[in-house]
Structure formats: C-alpha cells, structure tokens
C-alpha cells in the first residue's frame, strides 16, 4: 500500500466527496488524489508521477529566495485603457482575479538572495488571468529589471502565461518590445538574465522576454510554445508529434539549456550565479 492510500484510509472520511475541498488535490498528471499538505511540502510536485504543478507567486518566491526577501511595489498602470468588454467587463474580470490573489496582477517581483547570492526574482502567476501579459505585467517586469540594474545583480524571471492579455489589445502586444528594452539594458550592464520557463509559457511572452535569457531553464513537462496546438492543427492538418512543445522537446531542439526539477531549482540558480557573477562583467 502506498503512503498515500495509507493516509487516505486512515482518515475518517476517505471519500473525496466528503473531504473538505482543500484537503485533497487531484494530480493533473496522473489523476491521483494527493494530500494537499504533503503535495505542497513537496513543492507542488506529484510524488507519484513527478508532475510539476502550477504554483502562485508567493510559494514560488519562497521556494527560490532565501527568507527575508522583499516584494517590490506593484507599479501603477492605467487600468482598462480600451474600456474592453466581451461577455464581461474587463474591469470585472480584474476584480474577480484580484479577489483570488494576494497581488494586483500576474507578475510579482522581489529582491533578496538565493543561497546568499543577491538577485531580483520576477514571477508570473498563471493563476491570475492565465498569467496574461498586459500593461501591469510589462511594467512589473520592467520594474524588476530596473531593480536588478540598480542593485547590479542578476534578474531571474519565472514565466507562465497563456499569452497576451487580449482585453488590452495592442497595448499588450507593445509589452513585447517594452520588456525587450529592459533585457537589452541588462545585457549592456553585464548582468545575468536567467529565465525559468514554467508551465505553460506561450504566445507573446515566449516570443519576447522568455526567449531572451542568457540561460533558459525549463521545468519538467512544461508547455512552452509560440503558437497554440489547436491553431497549428487547424493550419497544417497534421498530427502533432509526441511530447510536442514540452520542456524536454524544446531541450532536444536547442531552445532551452536544461530541464531542472523544482527541488533542484534553487541550487541550480545559485551555481549559475556563481559563474555569471556580475563583477566579472566588463
């Protein structure tokens, strides 16, 4: 009997229907019901199949940075610049997303240390409107880069996004060159810029700051794509290859340097920072 079945059988209400919503979590990889506390203690990675679950900004920052890191203030941006409305108002969608989030939008940056090495870490949260890139995400990305430039330290960004925030129309597209202005500045300043591609990283995010790192680290199994699979299938009408657009596939095709398990991420970053010390830059 697995540890999990043992735990489950030991509970008075083993049936998932009768358990509180937050006690159990279903692994999206293998479908196994996992004890939430154990799952989170395992960095939201399934102990059974190794599936790397999507995580929010706060747990991610805590996993990467040493204790005592400081959140950067979220930059103020113009809200709902297009007065966008589909089946719902964009402002209502934002309100709903904020009600479920500790942060005002999908990108949160913090400054601190990774195993003692100074760094600024920016995290994109797929849980906030699919991590989509709008003005707030762009501005927060840039603020993180500014902080790294000011502190003369590395900038590490964990990406996760369904793509651009369509409700901001062209202004979301403009975040691509905008973020690229900052990645160029980091390069010119000789500061390392490391991208951690988490599940999923797609669309305009992939086609800008997610693919401009000195080093690209991907999480196991992460979907990393420019075009969506449905769009590709509709265009070419061919079957997609096994593992298409997954982290391991991108590694094979030379788009990421390495696929790193979450438990090893902090140490990997620390090692890289030792090599890419800003002090060595010209």
């Amino acid at each position, binding site marked *: 009997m697995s540890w999990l079945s043992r735990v489950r059988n030991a509970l008075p209400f083993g049936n998932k229907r009768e358990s509180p919503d937050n006690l159990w979590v279903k692994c999206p990889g293998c479908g196994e019901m996992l004890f939430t506390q154990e799952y989170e203690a395992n960095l939201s990675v399934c102990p059974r199949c190794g599936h790397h679950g999507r995580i929010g900004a706060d747990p991610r920052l805590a996993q990467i940075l040493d204790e005592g890191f400081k959140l950067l203030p979220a930059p103020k*941006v*113009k809200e709902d*610049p*297009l007065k*966008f*409305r*589909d*089946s719902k108002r964009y402002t209502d969608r934002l309100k709903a997303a904020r009600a479920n989030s500790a942060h005002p939008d999908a990108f949160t940056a913090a400054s601190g240390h990774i195993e003692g090495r100074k760094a600024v870490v920016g995290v994109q949260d797929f849980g906030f409107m699919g991590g989509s890139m*709008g*003005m707030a995400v*762009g*501005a927060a990305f*840039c603020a993180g880069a500014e902080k790294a430039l000011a502190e003369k330290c590395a900038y590490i960004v964990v990406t996760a996004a369904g793509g*651009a925030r*369509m*409700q*901001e*129309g*062209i*202004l*979301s*597209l*403009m*975040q*691509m*060159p*905008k973020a*690229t*202005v900052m*990645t*160029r500045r980091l390069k010119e300043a000789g500061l390392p810029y490391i991208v951690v591609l988490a599940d999923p990283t797609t*669309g*305009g995010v*992939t*086609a*800008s*700051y*997610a*693919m*401009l790192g000195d080093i690209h680290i991907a999480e196991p199994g992460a979907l990393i*794509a*420019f*075009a*969506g699979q449905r*769009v*590709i299938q509709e*265009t*070419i009408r*061919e079957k*997609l*290859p096994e593992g*298409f*657009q997954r982290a391991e596939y991108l590694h094979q*095709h*030379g*788009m990421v340097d390495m696929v790193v398990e979450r438990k090893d991420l902090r140490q990997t970053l620390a090692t890289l920072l030792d090599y890419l010390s800003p002090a060595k830059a010209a």
Partner: protein
Amino acid sequence: MISYLEFEKPVAALEARIAELRAASEGDDVDISAEIKRLEAKSAELLASTYASLTPWQKTQVARHPMRPHFKDYVEEIFDDFVPLGGDRYFGEDEAIIGGLATLDGRKVMLIGHEKGHDTQSRIRHNFGMGKPEGYRKAVRLMEMAGRFGLPVVTLVDTSGAFPGIEAEERGQAEAIARSTEACLALPTPMVAAIVGEGGSGGAVALASAERVLMLEHAVYSVISPEGCASILWRTGEKAPLAAEAMKMTAHDLLELGVIDRIVEEPAGGAHRDRRETALALGAAIAQELDALNKKSSAALRKMREDRFLKIG
C-alpha cells in the same frame, strides 16, 4: 477587374451600371455621357462616404483585400535598384519575409518586409506572408548589416501573423521573433516601420519595433486576429466584428493610443483602387521621416526608440 467586398455591393452595382451604359453607348448615336457622368459622380461619392466610415471589421477586410498593394508592388513603385538578399545562414530562405538593399528617392536603405503574394502560386511561395524562424533570422542578419554599414532600415509590415507550424516551433519561432524585436531596438541607424496591410501580433511587432511607425489609413494592427480574439473571448469566431471593434485596431485608434506616429491616407476606395498613388504617398512619408531621423546620433535614435516603447502603457 476589381473584386468587391461585401460592404461595397452598392458601389459595385453602380459601377456595373456605368460599365453597361458605356458598352451600350459605343457605336450608338444616343449621347448618354451626361448620364454616365452623373452616375460616376454618384458612385465616387458613395465610395468616399463608405470609406470615410468603415467599421474596424470592414477595415480588416480592406487590409486583407487580395488586390491590396504588397511588398513587391512598393518595391516596383517607389524603390530603385533593389538588391534582394536571401537566407538566414542557418537553415534556409524564407520568402514570406523579403529583404534587401534599396534606394528610396536617392536614399540608400535596408528594406525588409512581409510579402503575401498575389495569386495562388505566389501566395504559396510566400507562405501567405506568414514568416518562419528563418525569415525573422534573415531580418536580424540584415538589420545587423544595416547597422554596420550605416544604412537606415525601412520595414513594410503585412502579415496575419508568424507561421504556426510544427517545424516553425521546432526551429524556435518564438526565439526568432524575440531576437528580431531585439535587433530593431539595437539598431544604431534610423528605423521607420510602416504597417501597410495586416499587422498581426508578434510576427508584426518583430519588424515594427521602430522609433517611427507609420500606418496606412485602412491597415489594421492587433495582438490577435479578430476571429482569434472572438473565438477565445466570445467562444465563437462569428463575433469577429465585435472583437475588431473592442480591440482598437484601426490606424485612427492606434494613433490616439500612441502606438503609431502617423497615418498615411489611402486613395478613395482604399489602396487597392490605386496602388501607385498609395505607394507614392507612403514613399513620400517614409522619405520625410528618414530625413528627420538622419540628423540624430545612434545614441539618440536608440533612446528615442526605447522611450517610445517604455512610455506606451
């Protein structure tokens, strides 16, 4: 032969009537030239009023019009001594993105842009203007070369988007687009981009991250196609007209948002009605922009370009 768009049907009916009268009057003694003149004036007026109040969705149709002037038409009309340069030096030659040395009314430039093709055969050859990684990598190569030889870069943007395909993904479509945007921003020489048809998403911005962005009057520029936006947010592609409206993708809206700097007017009835006039107007506008940028230092140009994007949104 003009191919009419759905909303042009009343104009089409009038023009057909004029053609009929013309044919009938040939070799005929009855003088109906006055009637033809009257109808022509009416038709011109109707065309002008129709085009003065196009909806964003109608503009999308105009921007995609099969007869709309494309890259090669502009080369023919306004550029001299065009020397196309091929290949990305890594994989192949992508004819969806054409580039080369060209002269605009005496000004030597590096000209890069999307070409959609004009008939079945050429559309396939140019992959309908949907660039692949090698196309964007060629653009990077040419931009870097332009920088080394002090040539300004002019881009003509006209794509529904970068090509979504298995091989394009495998060869790093996203990376190629990101690098192309980066190459625009790194240019030490002036860069003027013109959205001449469809400015579709990342595939467009990769060639449009310039300090001066011009747009033809009825061109469109957006983060996703109206159909794509509608199918995601409204769950049906049929709401594309609504999505086009909501996304603010017309030249007028984009000028207001500060995303583009200048609108180049099209002839009455759209660019496809008079390709030459359209090309000349665009050429004059690009030349004027280049001359204004020419006096600036590399540092000033880069700063201008960076500030432009940092201050948007």
